[in-house]
Every structure is written in C-alpha cells, then in structure tokens.
C-alpha cells in the first residue's frame, strides 16, 4: 500500500514539477511580451507626440496664411461680404398638405402656380453723415 502511495506521490511530484515549470515559462514569456508591448506603446506614443507637435507647427495660421498668399488667388473676406440669417428673405409659406403643392410635379404648367409673394425688403436705416442722427436717445437699449 505504502509502495503504491509512494509511486503515486513521486509521479504526482514529477507531474507537478513539469506543470509548474510550464506555467513559470509561460509567465516568463508573457512578461517578455508585456515588456516589449509596453516599449512599443511608449515608442508609438512618443511618435504620436512628435507628430502632434509637427501637425500643430505645419497648421499654424502664420504658415497657412503665407502658403495661401503664395498659392491662392484669394484675399481676406471683407465684412460686407458676410451675411447673417436676418439678411436672408423669409421662406415662402406654403402648407405641405396643399393639393397644388403635393401634386406640383404632376400639374400641367398652365395655369402656372402663383409665385409666393416675396417679403418686403428689410428696412434699411438711412444714415446721412451730415445729419446728426446718432444720439444717445437713438442708441440701442436706451
């Protein structure tokens, strides 16, 4: 009985040694992988940092302006060329369920649909420099 047990224990011990060795070796390989992955990540992050800085350098407005002046036939937009939503004419209001609107593509073009009336032009404040119109009372909010 004891002999059987001894054999069993020796076998178990040998098996366990092999298993432990295998696990230890796997762990060592994993550690090495981890180290090299960490190094690779660090290297990539360093490169990303350098590329990010390079991107910021090449896209800085001073450089873009110089390039645009050299290669593009464009200049700064004067503010009078800008528009705001208030300057746009209002959309013509036709209800979506209006039969004429729904079947517009099927209608024979006569009689032609009455074009929606355009809104009256926005009032333009007349500003004659010779007339002292700008006073505190006329100032917005007063």
């Amino acid at each position, binding site marked *: 009985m004891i002999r059987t047990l001894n054999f069993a224990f020796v076998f178990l011990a040998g098996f366990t040694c092999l298993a432990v060795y295998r*696990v230890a070796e796997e762990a060592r390989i994993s550690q090495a992988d981890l180290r090299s992955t960490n190094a690779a990540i660090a290297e990539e992050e360093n490169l990303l*940092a350098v590329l990010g800085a390079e991107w910021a350098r090449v896209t800085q407005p*001073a450089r873009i302006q110089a390039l645009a002046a050299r290669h593009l036939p464009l200049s700064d937009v004067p503010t009078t060329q800008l528009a705001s939503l208030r300057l746009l004419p209002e959309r013509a209001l036709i209800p979506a369920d209006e039969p004429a609107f729904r079947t517009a593509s099927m209608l024979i073009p006569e009689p032609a649909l009455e074009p929606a009336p355009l809104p009256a032009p*926005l009032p333009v404040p007349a500003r004659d420099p010779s007339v002292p119109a700008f006073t505190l009372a006329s100032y917005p909010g007063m």
Partner: protein
Amino acid sequence: MDSHPEATQLVKSRISIAAFLSAAAFAIIGARLVDLTILNADGPAQIAVAQPANGGRADLVDRNGVLIARDLPVSDLYATPASFWDSSEAATALSGVTGTSEERLREVFTSGRNYVLVARALTPDKRAEVMSLGLPGLVFEDGFKRYYPSGRSVSHVVGQVDPDGNGVSGLELGLNDLVRNSDEPVTLSLDMRVQFALQYEVAQIKESFQAIAAGGIVLDVRTGEIIAMVSLPDYEPNARGLGPGDSVRNRMTQDVYELGSIFKIFAFAEAVEEQTITLDERFVIDRPLRFGRYSIGDYGEHGHDLSAELVFAESSNIGTAQIGLRSGAERQRAFLDTLGLLSPLKTEIPEMASPLTPRQWGEIETATVSYGHGISVNPLSFVAAAASTVNGGTMVTPTFLKSSETQHGERVLSERASQIMRYLMRLAVTDGTGGKADVPGYAVGGKTGTAEKATARGYSRNLQITSFAGIFPSQDPRYLVFTMFDEPKGNKESFGFATAGWTAAPATGRVIARIAPLLGVSIDLAALTPAETALATP
C-alpha cells in the same frame, strides 16, 4: 523485527501523518494549478500601460484644443571617436543628419577626447536616421524638451521652462503646479487664430510706423478670458538664446505706461455714474487750463466749446480735466481703486508690474489723471478696468484659463452708466478720433489715446505712446481689443501723423475685421451704411 512493536507503531503513525500532510500539500498545489491554468485561464491579466510620454509637464492647448506647448522626447547624441573607422567620414555623415557643423565635428573627433557631444535634442525621427547610418560608438542620452509649435506667436504669454522642466516665466511659471500635476492637457483661454491675427496686424502697423515696440490684447468682457495677448518685439521660444532685436519683456504686463487720453474712459465713467455731467452740457475749451506754472492744453483745435459727449469723442484734455475736477481727488482715487488700477493685478501671469500713482493727489493731479497723465499702469490692468465699464458695470478679473462662465464681479458702474459709456465709445468712432477703427457691420466703439512720453527733460512732443481700446459690437460688447504702439513715427500715408487715430485705431479695426467672424460675432445690419447694406444684401 518485532522486538520493538511500540517503536514500529510510532514510526508507522508518523509516516502516515507525513504522507497525509504531503498528499494535502500536493492536493492544494494541484487544485491551485487547475484553478489557474484551466478554470481561470482567461482571468485578469496585467494590462500593458506605457509610461507617460512626457517629462512631467502636461500639454498646454488653446481654447479649441490646438497644441501650444508639449514635452517632446529627445535624445542628446554622444560619440566615442576612437570607435570610428574613419572619423572624417563619420563627421560628414553625422553633420548631414543632425545639422551640426561638420568642421566642429571633425575637430572634436580628432581632439583625442574619449566622449564628445555631437548634437542636442534630436527628435525620434532624427535619432532613427542617425541609427540607420550604422556608425559604431554612438550613445544616445534620453530626455525631454519643451516644444512650442507656434513659436513666436505665444512667446511672452506662455513663457519658458528651465532644463529641469520647471517653469521660469509666463504661464509656464504661473501655472507650474497645475501643469506638473495634471494628467490631462491644460486648456488656456487663448485662441491661436486670434492670437495670430492680433500679432500679424499689430506687427504690420508697428513696421509701417517704425514703432520701437507694440502690443495688443483681446479680452472677453463677460468671462474675463484673455483670447489673445501679444508683445513686440518677441522672441523664439524654441531657440537657445535671443536673436538680434528680440526681447523677453512682456510689455502688456511687465511695463507700466502713462496711457493718455484712453484714460478718459474712467473720468467719464465716474462722471456719468455720479451724474456730475449731462452729455449735452457745454464745456469751454478755448484756452489752456492753468495750475500755477503748469497748463493743460489740447491737441488740435476744437473751437470755443464742446458738448460733454464731444469732449470725449474728440478727446479734449481741457474739457476732461474740468469734468475730472468736478468729482475731486478723493472720489477719483476711490473710483480708480475700485477698478483695480491702483494695485497690482493678480492673474496667472507672474510678471505683473505695479502701477505708479501720484504721491500727492491734489487738484492738478486730479486734472492730469483724468486724461491719463501722472498715472502709469500696465496695459492688462487698463484693459480689465475698461472692460468693466462697458460690460454692464461689473468688475472682471482677467484669466488665462478657459472658462465659459460670465463673471459676476463687484459692481463698479450702474447698468445705465455702462450703457452710456458704450454710446460714448461708439460716438468716438462715428464722430470722433477713432474713425479708422470702424468695421462695416460690427458697430465698433472705442477710445484713442496719444500720450507724450516722459523723458528726463519733461514730456516729449515727438515721442508718443499711442493706443486704442475698441469694443464690438458696441451696443452689447462681447470683446475688447486693445492695441498700443511705442514711439510710432509718421509716414507718407498718414501725412506725417503718428497719433492713435492713425496707428492704434486702424490696427484695432483690422484686428476686429479679422477676428469677429472667427469668434462667431454676426454682423449687424443697423451698423452698415446704405452703400454697405447694398453690398451685404444678397
């Protein structure tokens, strides 16, 4: 064998105990092995985490996330010349990649020294190029270098760090603890697009009027955020040392100036608040004001008398002095103190000059301070105080950190007085000295300031500091743009004039025309003349 039955029994029982303990130990180890290798094979593994790729300082980014400063990994390259087959060939190759002078390399390689410096601060791509040369005897020492991609644009504001990565000037010093302890990029209030537009336009005018120095600030009058700040001459923060003509002085914070007529903003703000004047009240300005042997005169002719609002718009010293005297020395001093003009400003930039104020604040000082002489403040303090008079009347503290919240500081003016100041500043542009600052569609308001510089022999007629504080849109200002020029000289286009109306006002106008669309301020139809409206209407 059976002579000692008790002993045999004892040995057997001991063997049994030992066998049991061994079996238990193996069983535990075996169970743990099964647990680790089979049951928990996919258990928590260690996650690969790289070390932070910086030298201990977080990135600085602008309000839109554009990079302003970053620690870059760099390497210093050393060589052991004895390892080279041919030191002359090595010198040529290394010079080609690193940019180091070939002659210097030849010299140090043949000097007999064992270990010599080849190049400092090589970026990783340069390092890879050096490696690909395949030369023996090269050693890299790793480190970090603070890099500023925008270069000169941000030199004074952002400042610099020492080789150990500690801030030594500008925001790098003022925000040192924050930048050192933050894992995330630190977001500044600056907008690099506005910063460039301000720098470019101010530099253009500085150049065309041959000013010795210039500067500018763009401030959000509600949140107190500094959107841009420029001081010229500047310097290249990525270079070692200063180039010819460069300066590390931030004239917007480190220097104090007698800013001149631009200070009339405060005299009028006080008078409007205390209701010591009405805007249509007439002030006689046909002769200089005399105080003993001193007299206060005007620049140019303004006629016999002017209404109070035109005293502001046309910038009459004589009229403003009379208005200042109505409040008196004590109240004037208290008002300027409330605006923070009599004590050093506290903000994230450490280089902040203290104001120079009159030792004795008598009648003549009250008169001169009302039009900006006899008191010297740094431009940033002025800008903060001026913004507080037009933003509805609450004090703003300038900040370089992004913050979208409106500041609710101490009230320094009533809403109505603030509204009147906006009107007066608009009037100074439509009917006064600041006409060249106007931008179609943006209703710019502002005030010019042309101050004579104090010299050893009194005030100089020829040396001037010109400045302009512009607000837009003036009916509900969002931003204040300040520009300043030191000793501009008249040119052909300005018919020899170098006053603020010819220098700082157009500079401010050009800055506003560029930055207003960038900052999302839409144009105002009411601020266009009929001709401009015809252009703008589709």
